[in-house]
């Protein structure tokens, strides 16, 4: 039962088939439009795009990862996953969900790569290990790099899901023993959309795909290659605990009185002020909560290198090689003491070593004084 070349229904046809009215369809479109931050005037374009396009072929590769990006993706509530899978995209390869295994799975990927050359979206979950000629991740006897290069070749665009694919995530933390490498460093000449987060929010993942479907081009990216729509603000900028931050009211220790009152988590290590993500606005699991709301500081999971940029519960990072408690301030204080001692020692030494000079200066002064009197 391979793909037959039957005419592909458009989104609108599919929505209609599912028994939704044109009004429902427009409602969905305007919600999606608002969601990806467009003017109302763009609603017409969005609707038109969804009405006329066939389902977008998608190949989703899995390398060094934990599959939580796939898990997060299936948590999306708008659009819901069943609708994405049945109506919006044609997910032709993903080891997590596809029915076929082994050669049949590999064949399914090949079919899409040839039939939809230049049209399919390549999603990558996980990093690529570059050490030892790539043997730290092998599928079907090939290395992940070989597979990535083959699949990237005919892709229209590449989406790097999660922190693994966009910055290497936990396996790239020091000493990065497998040389785990993010996707944008390996493919050249293709747009790579980074969707960092460990994992990214499900609706953000769905939103990135819907953006591409709607406009036929990738969303506007920031300097780090992330869609501006979801990564242009810090968690801190939309955090509901921000008034406590501004007021200077902080949780001093977990489960203290201030924690019960929902004060700001800055002093227990919150990385929200340095983390670009949509958590404060969109929240997780269809708006249920997000880390800070549950009382735990943001660990900065969408930031590059966040595993090595300091401990979870400290504001100041520790220095490699100095032990976990050697923060900048502790080292600074030690340096301050050392400087104090050095200055004092220098002052004493001056009085000893340069005694003659000082003595002469004093004598010169005394002499002048005397001469004034004389």
């Amino acid at each position, binding site marked *: 039962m391979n793909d037959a070349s039957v005419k592909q229904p458009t989104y609108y046809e599919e929505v209609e088939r599912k028994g939704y009215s044109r009004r429902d369809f427009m409602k969905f479109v305007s919600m999606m439009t608002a969601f990806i931050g467009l003017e109302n005037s763009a609603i017409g374009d969005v609707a038109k795009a969804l009405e006329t396009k066939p389902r977008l072929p998608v190949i989703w590769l899995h390398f060094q990862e934990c599959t939580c990006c796939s898990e997060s993706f299936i948590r999306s509530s708008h659009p819901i996953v069943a609708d994405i899978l049945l109506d919006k995209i044609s997910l032709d390869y993903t080891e997590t969900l596809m029915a076929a295994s082994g050669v049949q799975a590999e064949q399914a990927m090949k079919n899409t790569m040839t039939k939809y050359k230049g049209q399919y979206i390549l999603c990558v979950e996980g990093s690529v290990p570059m050490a030892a000629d790539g043997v730290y991740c092998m599928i079907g006897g090939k290395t992940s790099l070989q597979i990535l290069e083959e699949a990237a070749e005919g892709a229209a665009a590449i989406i790097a899901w999660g922190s693994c694919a966009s910055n290497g995530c936990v396996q790239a933390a020091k000493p990065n023993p497998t040389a785990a490498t993010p996707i944008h460093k390996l493919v050249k000449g293709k747009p790579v959309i980074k969707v960092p987060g460990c994992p990214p929010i499900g609706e953000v993942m769905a939103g990135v795909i819907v953006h591409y479907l709607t406009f036929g081009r990738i969303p506007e990216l920031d*300097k780090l290659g992330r869609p501006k729509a979801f990564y242009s603000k810090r968690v801190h900028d939309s955090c509901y605990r921000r008034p406590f931050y501004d007021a200077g009211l902080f949780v001093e220790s977990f489960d203290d009185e201030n924690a019960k009152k929902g004060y700001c988590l800055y002093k227990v290590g919150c990385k929200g002020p340095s983390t670009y993500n949509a958590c404060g606005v969109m929240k997780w699991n269809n708006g249920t909560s997000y880390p800070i709301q549950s009382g735990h500081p943001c660990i900065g999971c969408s930031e590059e290198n966040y595993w090595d940029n300091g401990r979870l519960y400290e504001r*100041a990072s520790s220095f490699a090689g100095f032990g976990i408690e050697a923060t900048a301030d502790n080292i600074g204080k030690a340096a301050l003491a050392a400087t104090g001692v050095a200055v004092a020692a220098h002052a004493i030494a001056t009085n000893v070593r340069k005694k003659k000079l000082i003595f002469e200066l004093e004598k010169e002064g005394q002499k002048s004084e005397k*001469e004034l009197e004389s």
Partner: protein
Amino acid sequence: MSTKYLHVHKLRRVYVWEKPVRIYHWLNVVVLLALIITGFYIGNPLAQLSTKEASDRYTMGWFRYVHFVAAYIFFFNFLFRIYWGFVGNKYANWRQFVPFSKKFYKEMWYVIRMDILMLKGREHMSIGHNAMAGFTYFLTFLAFLVQCLTGFGLYAAMSTWWFPKLFAWVPSLFGGDIITRQIHHWAMWFFILFAIVHVYLVFYHDYVEGRGEMSSMGGGWKFIEEEVFERNHHQTPNPTKDTK
């Protein structure tokens, strides 16, 4: 009668620090103190014990506000000083800071021997700052630069004005805001340590040279021995500039 005073140095009054340099200096001292104090607070705010509502207070907000105001003053003051390095007097000139000549290095080595290793020799040689001091200020200027880049880089995300936005690329250069903030924090310690050593050395020079170093940043005047004046007069690093 004339022999009576011969052993006493003849001192010449030299106008080393022009008024703009002095104003720059003291403004710098004030805003840096403000930046360090507020920076410390931002980095590690105190626990507050009070029953007031969050909406009735703005402690962190104020500290940040002062930090940012001071940051702007600091930045433009710094820019001004760079400008003055091209138009100011010889002692303010950029060549005093950038180690560009062999002579500069020789003088630095000499200062190390005299002031740090405390060897004996000819004490008073320079009129403005010595080469070692100049070089330290050069490092300080680099630290100013790091602090402004990282500071405005972080501030870019909090501001809607185009000016801070010009620095939005900075965090991506270092690999994100977390590490940028850490660098900003670590760099603060350089200023603290610098200030201590710097103030001490001003005392030190005043003490062992007796040229009014302490007050020079007030009135602008230093008192230079006639011999030193003569020597400098005949071999100045930038003869086009005035050397009075």
